[in-house]
Structures are given as C-alpha cells and as structure tokens.
C-alpha cells in the first residue's frame, strides 16, 4: 500500500473536506443559517462583476456528500484501476469533476452555474472516453451532445435573466414567479435539468455513459452529473408554474416507469444499475414537480449513498469477472464474495426501500406524500408500478448474480478483491444503513404528518413484495423452459430498448441533418462551389495566364510597331 499515491492523497483531502462541510452543514441546519459570500472581482462604471457563493444547509450537505463519495471512489479506484498507466489523468479528471460540481452547488448565480455545468459536460466526456475505443467515443459523444442541449438552454436562460438586471437567480425566483420572463427562464432551466438528469427525451445517454470506468459511474450516478439537474430543479422549484409542474410530472413519471421496466429486460450489470438510477431520478424530479423539493433533496442524498455503494459492488464483481458485465455469466457470487454480496444486497434493499435502511426514509415518505396529495390515477399508477418494478429488477439481479451456479468459465479466481475497494465499500455501507434515519432527523426536525387508511399505507409494502416475488419468479429459468419473452418478442424488444428512445431521439434527430449535410457537401462543397470557387477560379486564371504567355511569345518589333501606331493615332486625334 503506497500512502503517497495520488489516490490516497486525494482520498484524505476529499474526506477531510467532506467531513468538514458535513459538520458545518450540521451547524447550519440546526441554527438555520444561510451565508452569502460575495467577491467583487471588478467594477467597471456601473456594472460590477461579482462572484457569489451560497452556503446553506442544502449546499453544504450536498457538498459533503459529493466530497465523501468521491473520496471513497478515489480510494476504490486505487485498486480498481491498479496498474493503469494513466491513473494520474483519471484521478485529475475525477477531481475536476468534483470541482465542477462544487461550482454548480455553491453558486446562486447562473453564470457560475454554467461554468460548473460546462465543466461537468467536458469532464464527463473525457471520462466516458477514458477507455479509448469506438464504443466509448460514441457514448461520450452522445453524452456530451445531450448535455450540450442543456448548455444551450442555460445560456438562453442567462440571456433572459438580462431582464432582471442580474444573474443571481435566488433573488428573483419568488418575486418574479409568474412573470413571462420567469416562465421562460424556468422552462429553460427545466429543459437543462432534463438533459442532465436524463429525463425522457434525453434518456439514451445515461446507459451509454456506462462506457466510463465503473468508479466514475459510481460518482456520476450517485452524486454528481445526473443529480446536478435535480439540484437545479430543487433550487428553481419555487418559480415553476402549474403547467410546467404537470409537464415535468408526466415526463418524470414516464421516465421512472420506462427505466424500471427496461431494467427488467437488461442483461448488462452496469446498465441495470444505470436504468435503476434513471428510475430514481424520475422519482426525484417527480416529487420536485409535486411541490416537495426538500423531499427530493432528501432522496437525492440517500440515493447518492446507496447508488454509489451499488456501483462499487458491481464494479468489484465486474473486476473479478474479468471485465465481463453480462449477468447471465454470473451466479453464485455470494459463495465466493460474501462481503461484496452483502454490500450489494444491503444497497439494493436500500434502493427498494427496505425499512430502516437509507432508502426507506426517503422513498417511503415520498410515496406516502404522493398518496396523501391529490393525484390522478395514472400518476399514482406510474409511481407505484415503478416502485414494484424497482424491487422486481433488484430481485432479478440477486437471482442472476448472487445465487445459483457459477456460469463463467471453469477456471476462475474469485474473492473479495482489493483491500481499498473493500474499505471504500465498508465506509459507504455504514452510511447506507444509518444515513437515512440520521438525515431525516436532521433535515426534518418536525416530521411530516401522514394520515392514511390501512390499505393505502400498506400498499407500498404490498407492491414491493409483489414486485420482488415477480422478479424472482420471472427470471427463474431451467433448461428447456418456455421463454415468455420470446413469445412476446416484439413487446419485450420495445420495453427492453428503452421504448426505442435511443433510435428515435438519437438516430431520428440526427438523420435529417446528416443526410442534409451529405447533400450539402456533395453538391456545394465538392460540387458547385468547387466548380465556381476553387478549381473553377484556378482554371480561369490559368487560362488567362496562358493567354498572357501567348502574348509574350510575340516578337519585340511587333510590339514596338504597336507603340508607334498608338503614338501616331494619338497625334492624329490630337490635331483633329
């Protein structure tokens, strides 16, 4: 163990700052403090350029989680990326990622948010293409371009904020809500958040971004990139109008349902977890649009914990599987890797909302608030089906990965690999178990009052148990068993490929511009503008130059003769 390796140094620094911002956050949440720090960079005539930092319990807690999780991820990647030649580049990229996230979290100003946002986009691109192959390049480009849509939306909202005279949105959100400018701004911010949080038209990049190394996925899916959009929504939520809220609710509910269903058809371990992240993101965005941003933030924090742990466990499994991610090759992992498997189970149970684990406090609260509020049946159905589906794919994952026979090659070495990986997972395991209750006591000093009849309050439990049973039963196959998904091939293909979203919103969108670009380049760039431009002009001037050369071949006396004729003509005309 090399204590001055870059991973360890970064680990200690990040852990220190994480714990620091945790404790400051404790003080802030208990005393209900908000600090603004303004740094006057330059003042020209009447316009001042100010960098503003916003410290309240929300930003401090989030920052603490980002630092804490990234510290453990960095520690984890010391083993996971062991022997990688470019480990320095990797760690620097992760640190840049954390810095960009810090900018985004701490700023109450759209310009500095854009700074962090662009940093996230750029660094996420660099991280996705870290393994340099064509699949990674494609995935990275998809990620970057999807997030660029959000960039454009943020830029446009910056332009719209000119109407208010400042980009410090926190001052205007409440007072200007309902004005036309604020409606535009909030719509654009919602658009940006939808790209970053991979809501429905922009969902296809999230599973594609699994091309990044697994520690990065643990970071991206838990606390950084995808939650940036949710964080933005939480900050902006008091300016949303009714129509925007219902639009967002529909989109997020559909995202949740789509990804929960899709995860049940997926055979790639990382992609299953990615789709589960998408489902949870839908839950968060849904509860923001339902009017409970604090709940969404609470779920964001707990989700960050168990999703990071889940990804770390998946990373270990993939690591020892020899980089095979297909869950059909796994099986019986719990016999070889008891610690990793128990971490996997704990985090998955937390994801499902198993009582008294981290996810229970937030997701159960969210679902009961949904039941308590007025809600149409469709929305309710989406929320509850997705909860059931979450348990369903979790148990399916258990079945494939943890139990049964081992399905890879017969010559394999399996263990709870890596001291640092296990340490990182252990650190997260503790907070996954205790974090939910602790956070709920801190954030909600007076608990929410939930008053529901018995059949409604047990419906969450019922749906979850039903989902778990279904997930186990449906994936249990034997040799020679009849495969229902082959019988329903078309619908399972539809649900398993994210409702054709990668085709429709990637190929569908890029088809026309690509074809048109081909036409343009064929008929203009290498067609007419070449004919009249480059080659044509060259031909024309060469032609003229040939003419000039032909004139130069003539005898000197002929030209002298012309001169004399010219002079004579002039004299003639002069005396005429």
């Amino acid at each position, binding site marked *: 163990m090399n204590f001055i390796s870059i991973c360890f140094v970064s680990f200690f620094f990040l852990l220190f700052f994480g714990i620091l911002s945790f404790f400051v956050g404790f003080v802030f949440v208990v005393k209900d403090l908000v600090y603004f720090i303004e740094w006057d960079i330059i003042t020209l005539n009447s316009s001042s350029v100010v960098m503003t930092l916003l410290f309240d319990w929300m930003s401090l807690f989030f920052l603490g989680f980002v630092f804490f999780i990234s510290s453990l991820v960095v520690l984890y990647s010391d083993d996971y990326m062991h022997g990688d030649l470019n480990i320095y580049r990797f760690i620097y990229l992760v640190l840049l990622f954390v810095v960009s996230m810090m900018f985004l979290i701490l700023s109450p100003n759209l310009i500095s948010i854009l700074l962090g946002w662009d940093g996230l986009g750029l660094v996420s691109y660099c991280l996705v293409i870290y393994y340099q192959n064509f699949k990674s390049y494609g995935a990275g480009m998809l990620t970057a371009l999807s997030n660029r849509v959000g960039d454009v939306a943020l830029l446009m909202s910056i332009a719209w904020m000119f109407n208010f005279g400042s980009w410090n949105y926190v001052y205007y959100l409440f007072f200007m809500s309902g004005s036309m400018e604020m409606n535009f701004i909030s719509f654009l911010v919602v658009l940006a958040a939808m790209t970053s949080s991979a809501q429905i038209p922009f969902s296809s990049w999230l599973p594609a971004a699994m091309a990044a190394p697994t520690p990065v996925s643990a970071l991206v899916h838990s606390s950084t990139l995808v939650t940036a959009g949710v964080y933005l929504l939480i900050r902006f939520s008091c300016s949303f109008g009714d129509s925007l809220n219902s639009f967002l609710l529909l989109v997020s509910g559909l995202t949740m349902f789509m990804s929960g269903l899709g995860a049940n058809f997926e055979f790639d371990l990382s992609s299953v977890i990615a789709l589960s992240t998408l489902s949870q993101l839908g839950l968060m965005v849904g509860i923001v649009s339902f009017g409970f941003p604090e709940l969404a933030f609470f779920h964001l924090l707990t989700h960050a914990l168990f999703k990071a742990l889940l990804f770390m466990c998946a990373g270990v499994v993939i690591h020892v599987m020899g980089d095979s991610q297909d869950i059909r090759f796994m099986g019986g992992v719990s016999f070889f890797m008891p610690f990793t498997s128990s971490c996997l189970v704990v985090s998955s149970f937390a994801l499902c909302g198993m009582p008294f684990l981290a996810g229970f406090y937030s997701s159960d609260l969210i679902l009961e608030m949904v039941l308590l509020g007025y809600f149409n049946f469709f929305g309710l159905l989406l929320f509850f089906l997705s909860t059931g589906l979450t348990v369903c794919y979790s148990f399916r994952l258990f079945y494939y990965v943890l139990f049964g026979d081992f399905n890879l090659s017969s010559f394999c070495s399996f263990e709870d690999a890596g001291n640092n990986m296990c340490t990182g997972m252990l650190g997260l395991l503790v907070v996954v178990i205790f974090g939910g209750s602790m956070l709920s006591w801190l954030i909600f000093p007076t608990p929410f009052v939930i008053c529901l009849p018995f059949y409604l309050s047990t419906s969450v439990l019922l749906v979850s148990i039903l989902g778990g049973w279904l997930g186990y039963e449906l994936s249990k196959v034997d040799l020679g068993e009849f495969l229902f998904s082959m019988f329903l091939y078309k619908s399972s293909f539809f649900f398993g490929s994210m409702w054709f979203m990668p085709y429709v919103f990637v190929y569908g969108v890029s088809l026309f511009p690509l074809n048109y670009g081909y036409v343009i380049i064929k008929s203009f760039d290498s067609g007419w503008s070449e004919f009249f431009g480059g080659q044509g002009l060259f031909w024309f001037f060469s032609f003229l130059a040939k003419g000039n050369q032909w004139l130069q071949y003539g005898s000197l006396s002929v030209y002298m003769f012309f001169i004399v004729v010219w*002079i004579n003509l002039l004299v003639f005309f002069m005396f005429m």
Partner: protein
Amino acid sequence: MPNNSTKILLLTTLTSGILISISSNSWFGAWMGLEINLLSFIPMMMEKKNIYTTEASLKYFIVQAGASSMLLFMVMMSAMEESMLINSDNLYTQMLMNTPLLLKGGVAPMHWWFPGVMEGLNWNNCLILMTLQKSAPLSLISYQINNDMFLEMIIVTSVMIGAIGGLNQTSLRKIMTYSSINHTGWMMSAMITGNDMWVTYFTIYSMLTLTVVSIVKTTKLSFVNQMAMTEKKNKLTKFLVFTSILSLGGLPPFLGFMPKWMVIQAMMTNEMKTTATMMVLMSVVTLYYYMRMTYSSLMMLHLETKWLIAQPINKTPKHIILLTSISITGLMMSEMIMNLD
C-alpha cells in the same frame, strides 16, 4: 564586362541621371537625365559575356531608346505648339506625354519587354531594374498626372497583368517581374490619389524587393522548384524567404501591407471604389503565387535529418536578417511611430 571601378562609375552616373531627370526644370533636362541613366545601365547589364546578357541589354536599349526618342519628339512638339502645353486639358496630350514614360517604367500594356530583359540579368541588375530604373519615369509621370480614364485603365491593366502573368511562371525572375508590374499599378493609383504617397509606396516596395532579392541571391535560386530543394538545410532561410515574400505580397501583419493600406484608404476617400476592389482582388491572386513559391518547401518537402542538424547552419548573412525583421515588424513599428504624435 565591367570591373569594380567601372561599376562604381556607372552606378554613380546612373544615379546622377535619375537625379537630373527628377529634379530638372525642363522636359529637355528630364530627357537628358533619362538618357544618362540608360547609357550607364547598359554596360552594367553586361556582367557576363553571353547571349542572355547581350539579348537583354539589346532589348532594353532598343525599347528605352525608342521611348526616349518618342519623349524627345513630344517635348519638341510641345515647345513648338502653344496648344500642347503640359497640364492642358487635352486628354491626348496627357496620353502622348505619358506613353513613353510608361513604356520606360514597364507599366502594364507597355510591359512586354520587361520579363524578357529580366530573364537575362543577374539578381543585382534585376534589383536595379525593378527599383532604381523605375524611379525616374514614375516621378516624371507623377509631375503631370491627372485622374482620368486613361490612367485608371493603365492601373487596372497593370494590376491584372501583374497578377495573372505571374501565375504559371516557374522562374523566380519572371515572378518578381510580374510582381513589380503589379506593384507599379498600385504606385500609379497612389500617384492619382496623393502626391507623395507613391514615394512611400516605392520606398517600401524597394526595400521588400531588396530583401527578397538578397535572399534568393545568397541562396543562388532561379526557379521555384529549386526553392524546395536548396532550402532543405536551412530552416532560418526558409522562414526568411516565406515572411519576406508574404510581406511583398502585402499580407497584413507585415510591412508590405502598410502602403497598400494607405492606397486603399486614399482611394476610398477619392471614390475610386471599383478600381480599388479590382486591385485588392488581384492582389489575392498575387498572394496565391507568392505562397505557391514557398508552399512546397515549407509544407511538403520539409525534411529534417539528423546529420543536417549537426552542421553549423547559421550562415545567413546578417543584412538579410535585418531586412527581414524590418519587413516583419515594420507595420507595427510604423504604426507606433505614427501614433506617437
């Protein structure tokens, strides 16, 4: 074949001929200066005794003597005829007086002797022919110039011929010739717009030509393809050639852009927009062949082998470095000096 002292004598008489011509009070004195100038340049052209120099000096002599006799004829006629006073409104008088001078200066429709003569000379004489020998006729033109259709046509023709004629040349002398014709067109328009602006143009043009000619003389280049081959060894020379040629072409950060800038601005204020557009467009074509001269040596045949690095390569004469650095930084320096107030 003149020896060194003869050369000194001839250079002195050549210069004094120019000075007599441009500072004389009468047309007759101007004619006399031109004759002295011509007669002292002809022996200088015979650097080596071979058919090329003979042909070149003979051609030059015939053309210049013819032009001089025409000029003398016009001068005598103007002395005889009251109506043929200089600066009269008669368009034909202008044309008659200007034609022999234009022929002497090698301005475009009367330029046909120029490439042939240049081809037979060595680089020193080429330099004199492109710069010094033009100064006397051009000053004489500038004394009696008017902004009329004839001169505008002369300008456009010389700019076009200078641009297009150089396009498919492989000889560096020919390229320099056509570039000189092109620049003469610019000088004529400088003459039309302002009295002494053409002197600035001429000075800067002479300096840039001096730079290019000194480089190609030192490296003994005559053709475009030799530029690619002989400059393999010396990166500095390559760079110097490239920058000085681009400067000659008038690319903005370099000194060569400054006179063109002045001319364009003056033409804009004098409402000569069509001519100015024509000239700018044609200078793009000149830039094309300037760039093609150095492109292959700089971009395609760039070769750096280890045994060439080990050699002491820095044999570039100091005056070339000095001249090139002036042509690189001249625009900025002159702007700074002009803005000092």
